[in-house]
């Protein structure tokens, strides 16, 4: 079945190239001329296989080195690192907190929670671990202080709600949690923030609290896994793809014959790839979080990377945000720095669209956008980020972007035809191993 599809795809590609008319401009004709540079798929696949096998071999070494770094530094002392925990141990931790608070109240001293500070000044990038971590610094959240009374109350309430959820062995979304006491929480950002606080206090991941975000990310491609026991074949998920389960615990039995994972920034590009059955031409798993990645998608990507040991290639916009999104996958976000160990997937290759591609593929001027002042500010900040500095290639690309003051979205390639992305750009990139 997949063979048939692949043939159909190749046929379409061939048809597409044949039907191209010579009316196109010089840039477009150049872009078309690149098509001729494409070697047969088989040879590209060979390249990819080499990549995959290199990755699966080098991976154990990388994994062990990173875990070694953890052990040596004893990060628990200086940094807050949360871990997945079963509901029994989370429950007992909550019990202890609540009992202590209750006794404190009964003795007339009110109560206070020691909450790790998640302020941005407290979040540092550790080059050794190659991710953002949260420095251990606790601040008291006493009830009898106007500044913290409300937060202390919300914390007590969230603890009690999480306790109830865990005891019943169910999962709820952040939204569910918020709606249990709208009056107290005010708006969802508050209950969400306290939920993160609670994770830090208890030293467990947010999913261990059985509170999940609603689904955001989708996956499609050469992947099968069991979601809560149901077998899912991601090649049969249509164009929309399979929603990534918010609760990673439900996922088991991951199997795949893919050669790489393709991380896509946007929904539009994802749809193009899915509709063109790109994964059938080049066996891969295609993943998107539709913009800024949520926890579930990041967990899922990490899980795939760890279990399948596949290389991860990223297709993002050629603007500072594309890189920012990449950084969140790789090094974690400041907001979730306490859980960076579980959420980050290091060693993602930046496939495209890179600033250098704009000229290389002669993307027409009308498809490039001038960078706004804000873009440039963000870009300059990114240059200062340690994780960018670590990769020389990235620094060069970013400097180029800032120099030309131009940005472009993945969709800029559509100016050469809607399927240019899947038929020419990506295959050529893969063939040339043009990733950094």
């Amino acid at each position, binding site marked *: 079945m997949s063979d048939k599809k692949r043939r159909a795809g190749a046929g379409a590609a061939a048809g597409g190239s044949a039907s191209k008319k010579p009316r196109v401009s010089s840039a477009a004709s150049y872009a078309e001329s690149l098509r001729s540079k494409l070697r047969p798929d088989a040879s590209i696949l060979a390249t990819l296989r080499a990549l995959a096998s290199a990755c699966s071999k080098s991976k154990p070494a990388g994994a062990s080195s990173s875990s070694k770094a953890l052990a040596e530094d004893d990060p628990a002392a200086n940094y807050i690192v949360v871990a997945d925990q079963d509901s029994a141990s989370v429950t007992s931790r909550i*019990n202890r907190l609540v*009992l202590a*608070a*209750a*006794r404190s109240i009964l*003795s007339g001293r009110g109560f206070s929670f020691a909450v790790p500070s998640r302020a941005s000044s407290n979040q540092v990038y550790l080059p050794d671990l190659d991710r953002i971590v949260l420095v251990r610094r606790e601040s008291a959240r006493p009830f009898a202080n*106007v500044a913290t009374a409300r937060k202390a109350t919300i914390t007590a309430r969230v603890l009690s709600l999480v*306790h*109830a959820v865990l005891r019943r062995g169910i999962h709820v979304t952040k939204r569910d949690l918020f709606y249990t*006491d709208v009056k107290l929480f005010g708006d969802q950002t508050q209950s969400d923030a306290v939920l993160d606080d609670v994770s830090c206090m208890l030293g467990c991941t947010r999913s261990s609290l059985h509170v999940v975000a609603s689904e955001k990310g989708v996956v499609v491609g050469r992947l099968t896994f069991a979601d809560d026991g149901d077998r899912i074949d991601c090649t049969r998920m249509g164009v929309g793809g399979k929603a990534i389960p918010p609760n990673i615990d439900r996922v088991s039995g991951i199997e795949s014959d893919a050669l790489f994972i393709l991380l896509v920034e946007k929904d539009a590009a994802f749809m193009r790839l899915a509709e063109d059955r790109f994964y059938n031409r080049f066996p891969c798993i295609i993943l998107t979080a539709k913009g800024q990645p949520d926890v579930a998608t990041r967990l899922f990507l990490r899980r795939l990377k760890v279990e399948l040991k596949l290389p991860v290639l990223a297709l993002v916009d050629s603007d500072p945000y594309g890189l920012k999104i990449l950084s969140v996958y790789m090094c974690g976000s400041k907001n979730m720095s306490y859980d960076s160990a579980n959420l980050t997937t290091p060693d993602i290759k930046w496939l495209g669209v890179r600033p250098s591609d704009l000229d290389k593929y002669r993307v027409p001027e009308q498809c490039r956008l001038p960078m706004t002042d804000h873009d440039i500010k963000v870009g300059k900040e990114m240059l200062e980020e340690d994780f960018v500095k670590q990769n020389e290639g990235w620094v060069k690309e970013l400097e180029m972007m800032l120099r030309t003051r131009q940005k472009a979205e993945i969709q800029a390639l559509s100016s050469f035809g809607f399927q240019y992305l899947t038929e020419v750009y990506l295959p050529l990139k893969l063939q040339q191993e043009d990733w950094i």
Partner: protein
Amino acid sequence: MDASGDSAAGATKRKAPSAAAAGSKPKGKATSKASATAKESSLLKQKSPAEFFAENKNIAGFDNPGKSLYTTMRELVENALDSAESISVIPDIEITLEEITKNKFNTMIGLVDRDRIDEELYDDFESTKAREKRLAKEARFQETQAKNAALGKKVKEAPAARGKGRGDAAFFRVTCKDNGRGMPHDDIPNMLGRVLSGTKYGLRQTRGKFGLGAKMALIWSKMSTGLPIEIKSSMKGQKFISFCRLDIDIHKNVPHVHLHEKRENKDHWHGAEIQVIIEGNWTTHRSKILHYMRQMAVITPYAQFLFRFLSDSADKNLTIQFARRTDVMPPIPLQTKHHPSAVDLLLIKRLITETTKQNLLQFLQHEFVNISKSHAERLIGEMGPDFSAKMTVKSLTSQQLVRIHQLFRQAKFDDPSGNCLSPAGEYNLRLGIIKELHPDLVATHASSPQVFEGHPFIVEAGISIGGKDVKHGLNIFRYANRIPLLFEQGADVITRTALKRINWSSYKINQQQDKIGVFVSIVSTKIPFKGTGKEYIGDDITEISSAVQSALKQCCLQLKSKIVKKLQARERQDRKRNLNRYIPDVARAIMDTLGEIADESPPKRPRYDKEDEELLEKVNSQEVTEMTFRDCLTQHVEQVDYEMALEYAMQSGEALECFHKGEIPLESAAAAAELARDFAPEIECRWGDAGLEEIMADRSIAGVAVVLAGQVQVELSLKMLKAGKHVIQEKPASESTTEAETALSVYNSFPSQFPYKPIWALAENYRFEPAFVESRKLMNDIGDMMNIQVIIEGSMNSSNPYFNSSWRRNFVGGFILDMGVHFIAGLRMLVGSEIATVSSISRHVDKALPPPDNICSLFQLENGCAGVFVFAVNSRSPKILWRVDGTKGTVQIERGIDSGKHGYQVLFSSENAQCQKTFYPFCGVNEELKAFVHDILQANKDGGHKAEPRSSYVEGARDVAVLEAMLESSAKQGALVQVKKL
């Protein structure tokens, strides 16, 4: 009055009504206009000054009838003020505006009122068509009114039926009566009937602008009504009242007297009353006139104004009394000589013609300020070879005068002093603002005299927040030489400074929302007015604008601290409510979870601590419920709030002390008073130094409590003791033993002027805590003392409310001394023996705390027993414990909580291994206050009464001595130190 009638000034005024004077006074524009008229009629005509002003009446503020009414009134009021102030009498001024209808006016002048015959002749004639239209419109309006009324809507006022055209002229009789100097009988016609004659032409700070005063009003009355003015006047001690009715011959600039006679003065009245009938417009200038009166009342709080408006319709009538608030009047501005850098060529010439001095040296030395004899000699030397000190001043050529003028402009002179100025006074300004606006907050500032172009000036500023009849945003009150400026506000230096150069928000003032009153008064020998009407001060003189800005900033700074304190007070008030709001949520959350934990069957759930298990059992047995948590939390909030309130009161004590140093942070003290009202609703407050004096002088007050920052308590206590008050003072007794010793020797050296010796007691004294009183008794049962342990692990960190009072952090010896006196008092009370020697090591670990914050001390009592004293100011696990081991038993006192009450747990273990536990809640403060009151009562009955020794100041000083010895020892790396004996 314009004419204060002294002969010296008379000399100057005689030459005034000449064409030259008229030409030099007004601005160039006016002169050119005059010359233009001269050209038109080739015939050379002379114009009298009166004529000139009659034609250019807008210069003097008589632009239109409304403005003329306003200007007439203000000229009369300002003259009246000047007149009263010139004889140092507190002004009492009555102003009456009486509206005279046209009919009445006609009768007055003997004109018969005629009815209109030819209606169409008149401007406001209404054609039949127009009339129908109007009636229809009115009918429609009434219809909608009725509808609205039926629907219960607010009924709109009927639109004022405005007549078409100019309408009738309105006439007013303006009367102004004062209690000033009055005028000499014979001078009255000239003083009022001749323009540009006056007494205000000397160089001094004056209210007037042109020196026209009432004369312009007279010209205006002549122009608009043709009626003469009436003057009644009497001088102090004069047996008669001069009555004069006159008008002015504008062309000749001479008075035209109708009647000039002496009348009886039965009431020994002195002052003047001027009555003038003019055309005016009350409707358009009503608010200006009232504003003027109000602003005048602000800047002149020592004057009393009675303003009346009378008319035929009673509902328009108005009587406003601006009451006097003070008797303190600014001094009369002094006449001064010119400053050399402020004179022009013409002025030099004039001074030379007028001077009585013969030679140049004397002329320079005596006709100018800031030129001494030697300075004058140097100046003459600098002028050139053709000048000499002895040369006759009147013989100087005009070239030589130019040379002098040039040198004056280039040479350096000392700035003129502000002595000749008479500012309103910061106090008067503040009083005026408070009296007229009743603001919530007010701050004032007076600058020191400054100089522009050789003229001294003083800026006084006030800013008020809130108040009645104040708009939101900036309300600017401008004063020049103590008269309000009402017109042409936009370009004025004060307005522009307030709007553009003050960043209100940085002083926590909201420029849009707050009701801000900005008051700036500038006084000078020359106000640099701008514009023809002299209604505003230009923004181009940097000296003035920066002086205004800095004065306003000073006020803002004062306000900022008050506003911040106010915000804090409000926050404190909200605190309890805010906290209580969350109690039910917390109680529910905790209880829900506890319930679930308790529900789990014991084998399944993990084991908890004993105390946790106990708690869960209580939950199961419903001994602990949601309500229990609510109650405990409510109590806790109550407790924290109480502590904060106490702390607040302490800070207010600081504020009281600040007041001694000249600042006025009354608000926090006021907040303390509010707090006190919770306990004693009838409490009376005394403020500031004066309040303190009052308290000291009040014989009915027998005792006072001094609760202030540690650094200043002793001084105030002694002051009170000296006044014969019994004093209970907050601990610590003193900052050092030296201070205590000095204080005690002062205390003991007081002459025995009272039948009793004033008691000096120390509060917050552990010697009254029942735990220590009872333990002291138990000590008899433990046999010989073997060793003593005192362990203090405090919890003084930045979240502790006491930490935030700055005086504690700046206190010598840090918290060790401030907190430590309690524990040493407890120790000395418990062991009943004095500490003889100590040896200690101290450390500074927590850098957020003042050093030292840890001390370990070995001590020996006079009875030989040794012990350790370990004190950590801030510890994670607070613990406070005294323990004495004896041969037969042990006594231990430990800080703890029992059934929600803080206090001390006393543990006594005796020989037979029995352990006796008793809990004593805190109540030492109540006990010591009881003892203090008891002592006062006894002392007043019996002069020889011995006060309760436990509360005596010397005991507290001994506590300080022990800690001081410990700190001293630690400074010497643990060397043995003898405790000072007191």
